[in-house]
């Protein structure tokens, strides 16, 4: 017999399982996001970083953003990091922007100030170290004029300490050693969040990123060296900004700088007029130098583009450029595997923030070569993917062509991992018909700036031959589960049947068998007495009377048990009607006057309730007929809002309760009522009749465990 588990134990077990699952999930997801943290850029690893906008690459142990996008971000860490010190080296690549770190970041998304957290950075227009709070808008907390200015192309070390609601920053020029400090306290501060890198309107580079638990001493070290603000500025009016500028930047603010060339990059061969890129591409290689003007469309390798076309540029020494930079390049045209490129002798920066819109082409147009070295956009289906060192390669196909997409930089791995073969992608990059394209294989290659230039238009179809084994496995698993469940139910069903048979056997043993034994004993006594001649007439009649009574009683018992087993009395009939029919069987025609009373709105009762009420009623009536000597039995069925009550009352002799409860099966009836989530009350006293009242819920309110228990037939009275 299986002991039923209480409902509360099952709920507690489910809750415990859910909590454990959540805990395990959290631990697994955040196993690598504990402090201290140090980047792995030197090992060309950055998979824990999430790019949001920008054009991010790993170069020489640093992470570089080549885009002028407003608010390009790279984020990592845990949203639960609270008080920490964040260190990093930062460098501005372009002009008119700022580059720095973000801390206690949450709600991050693409956009200039689209996050909630703190920004600490170096701003070039006013040569400032600035700390502020962004919450999908910008609040400038504390700008400080940088000693020595903010130089383009120079590495600075930033240290940011967040402790409680105090924020402090130290910026060190790694060339000159000059240090600048800023700090403030914010009353209602952002208390925790991730770390990140951010650039605004210019490209930037970061390296040596460390995050560790902050100490009060670290904050004090900065605070004591800065003009600490108890409340951040957070200017809201133009004159607030003007006052702030007067206070901090009167000597360093130089707006409206020239956008022209840096002196160091000035072109000395200014007499050569520029030609169009298309002219260079269609001419033979020349020994004379040519000058081209174009916009940077890819930085690594370097490609520039003007209105006529695009071309790759090879530099003798690296130059930090951003996408959108306008350059003037002087050099000699060369050719490699049928594709021209410019071997540059000089490069000058003419301007920046110039966007080149990609041309939307078909794969056949791209394969035709007309868009070689140009920024294009096209669609295709991802057939496969692979990595080789830092290089990511996506094999693509559409109805007409097969082509390849290549990207370098481990910052793309998250996006790369998420791409599923069979997906339809839209990609943007430089189209090349280059040396890696072998005849008969890929028609062309698209060089990506970053995996941000890959957009998933639709996922793989749910049906594919590759998925077939999985679906078969799933179906087989479902069939196996169904079979198992079916077999278990059948087993439970069989057990219930066997249990019921056992109960019937015991019942028959206790009643019919005993009764027949008694009849047999009496008849045997009469026979023996007649045979021996010792039995007198009246004694023989007495024994025969006993035997007849026993037989009659046995007949009644047998009829009662048969009626209890007959399903129609419990399923289709009204309970009172079923009980009335049942009493007919018990007395074979003679019974006290039976009164049936119904009240309330009849409603459907659950099988369990019906069965319990019928059995209780039958037992009570049986007791009345056997013991009460009543002339009237009242059966009352009362339908209430959610419960139903059955009252069986007689005007018989009554009995002492609870002393004789065991004699009249009250315990058994009470057990039946409790199993049906009901209650049983007996009202009786000697000479005053008896009322047995059972009340229980109408519908099925049993939980799964209870149903299972009932179905498996465990527990309950066996009618012994």
């Amino acid at each position, binding site marked *: 017999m299986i002991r039923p588990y209480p409902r509360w134990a099952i709920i507690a077990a489910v809750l415990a399982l*859910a909590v454990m699952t959540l805990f395990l999930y959290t631990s697994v997801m955040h196993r690598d996001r504990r402090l201290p943290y140090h980047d792995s850029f030197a090992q060309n690893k950055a998979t824990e970083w999430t790019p949001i906008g920008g054009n991010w690459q790993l170069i020489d142990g640093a992470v570089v953003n080549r885009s002028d996008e407003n608010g390009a971000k790279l984020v990592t860490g845990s949203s639960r990091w609270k008080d920490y010190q964040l260190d990093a080296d930062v460098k501005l690549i372009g002009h008119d922007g700022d580059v720095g770190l973000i801390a206690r970041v949450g709600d991050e998304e693409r956009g200039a100030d689209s996050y909630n957290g703190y920004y600490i950075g170096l701003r070039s227009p006013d040569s400032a170290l600035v700390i502020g709070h962004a919450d999908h808008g910008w609040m400038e907390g504390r700008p400080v004029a940088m000693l020595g200015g903010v130089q383009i192309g120079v590495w600075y070390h930033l240290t940011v300490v967040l402790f409680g609601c105090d924020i402090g920053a130290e910026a060190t020029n790694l060339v000159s050693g000059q240090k600048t400090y800023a700090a403030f306290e914010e009353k209602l501060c952002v208390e925790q969040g991730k770390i990140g890198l951010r650039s605004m309107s210019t490209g930037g580079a970061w390296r040596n990123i460390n995050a560790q638990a902050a100490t009060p001493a670290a904050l004090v070290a900065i605070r004591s060296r800065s003009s600490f603000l108890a409340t951040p500025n957070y200017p809201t009016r133009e004159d607030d900004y003007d006052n702030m500028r007067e206070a901090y930047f009167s000597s360093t603010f130089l707006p409206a700088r020239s956008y022209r060339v840096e002196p160091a990059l000035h072109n000395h061969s200014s007499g050569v007029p520029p030609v169009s890129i298309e002219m260079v591409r269609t001419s033979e290689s020349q020994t004379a130098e040519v000058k081209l003007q174009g916009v940077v469309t890819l930085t690594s390798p370097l490609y520039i583009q003007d209105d006529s076309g695009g071309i790759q540029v090879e530099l003798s020494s690296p130059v930090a450029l951003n996408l959108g930079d306008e350059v003037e390049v002087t050099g000699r045209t060369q050719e490699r595997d049928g594709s021209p490129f410019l071997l540059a002798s000089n490069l000058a920066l003419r301007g920046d923030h110039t966007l080149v819109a990609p041309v939307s082409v078909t794969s056949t147009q791209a394969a035709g070569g007309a868009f070689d070295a140009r920024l294009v956009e096209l669609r295709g289906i991802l057939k496969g993917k692979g990595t080789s060192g830092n290089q990511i390669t996506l094999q693509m196909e559409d109805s007409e062509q097969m082509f390849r997409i290549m990207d370098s930089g481990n910052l793309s791995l998250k996006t790369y991992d998420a791409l599923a073969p069979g997906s339809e992608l839209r990609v943007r990059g430089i189209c090349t018909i280059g040396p890696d394209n072998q005849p008969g294989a890929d028609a062309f290659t698209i060089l990506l700036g970053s995996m941000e230039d890959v957009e998933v238009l639709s996922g793989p179809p749910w049906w594919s031959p590759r998925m077939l084994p999985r679906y078969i496995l799933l179906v087989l698993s479902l069939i196996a589960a169904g079979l198992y469940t079916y077999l278990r139910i059948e087993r439970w069903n069989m057990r219930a049947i066997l249990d019921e048979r056992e109960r019937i056997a015991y019942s028959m043993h206790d009643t019919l068998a005993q009764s027949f034994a008694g009849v047999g004993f009496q008849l045997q006594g009469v026979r023996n007495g007649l045979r021996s001649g010792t039995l007198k007439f009246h004694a023989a009649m007495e024994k025969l009377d006993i035997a007849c009574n026993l037989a009659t009683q046995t007949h009644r018992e047998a009829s009662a048990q048969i009626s209890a087993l007959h399903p129609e009395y419990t399923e289709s009939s009204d309970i009172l009607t079923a009980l009335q029919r049942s009493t007919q069987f018990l007395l074979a025609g003679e019974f006290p006057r039976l009164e049936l009373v119904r009240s309330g709105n009849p409603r459907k009762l659950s099988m369990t309730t019906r069965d319990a009420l019928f059995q209780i009623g039958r037992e009570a009536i049986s007791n009345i007929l056997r013991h009460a000597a009543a002339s009237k039995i009242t059966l009352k069925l009362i339908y209430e809002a959610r419960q139903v009550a059955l009252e069986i009352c007689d005007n018989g002799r009554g009995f002492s309760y609870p002393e004789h409860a065991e004699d009249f099966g009250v315990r058994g009836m009470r057990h039946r009522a409790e199993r049906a989530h009901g209650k049983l009350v007996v009202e009786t006293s000697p000479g005053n009749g008896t009322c047995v009242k059972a009340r229980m819920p109408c519908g099925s309110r049993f939980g799964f465990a209870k149903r299972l228990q009932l179905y498996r037939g465990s527990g309950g009275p066996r009618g012994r």
Partner: protein
Amino acid sequence: MAVLAIANCFICGCHSASSHRFISAIPRDETVAYSVSEHAGLSNAAHRHNISIYWNGSSGTNGTEQQIAMVERAISRGYLGIVLTPTAPFSLDTVIERALAKKIPVVILGAPISLPRDPNLSFILNDYQRSGALAAERIHQRIGNKGDIAVVGIDPMSPGSTIDADAFESTLHEIAPNINIVSRLTGPYSPGQAEIAIEQVLDEHPHLKAIYSLNLGITHGAVAAIRDSQRDGLITLVGNDQALDLLFLVRQNVIDSLVVQDMRGMGVQAVENIVALHEGRTIPPVTYFQPVLLTRANIDTETMQQRLKMDWRPSP
């Protein structure tokens, strides 16, 4: 079921304020001072109606696509309304019409783009004719009745720009017919390109007395060009729209004046339009706001500072 829901929420990282009412505000450039003033107007008005503003605009690259994505986000999330300053005149028509088809009120701010009339569509525009007239009057005031001037930054793809330029010319012709427009530069230049182009104009016209610039980027280039040409103080530069550094240059007398839109007022009106539509009230399809001329003399007046106000945080 409750446990599974909580677990799902935790794993999916659901946000806490998903039941709040939102208006999506999509500026062209969210960082510039005039956009921040718009944000301030939106936030303050929204706060009065217990509405939140979701503020996010183009971040520079793929700006139009970003704006389209944000409009679609507003549609999918069932926002109360959309306030949009399109980066391009036609590229957002389809997604705007999709929003209108879903009965989401759309307010186009600042840019008179061409869209079919719809009861849920309204425009809140700067009076560009007045902008041009203000600039013409200022230049007349500064240089007198005659002289050579240039108009730079005319964007043929922007109806507001052409209205502004036409109004400038017609007003100038009316009040100072002897002032000659010797150069008209068209096209959306980057600041660097503008600097080079304007330098060329200065080289070609050594007696140039004034420049009227029609957008922010061109004004930056014009300042750099004037400085590079060492003509500081000799050329009156009148620009359009405000950025913090340009306002500083007005204070420094590098820029003579700026025609400033009432972006804050437009932001307030945009929220009121959306709220009115949800309450079943009708709204005018187009509302014009008057620009003013900001100079060194009036920049510190309370009226001007209120127009420039940038406090986008909801008032307590």
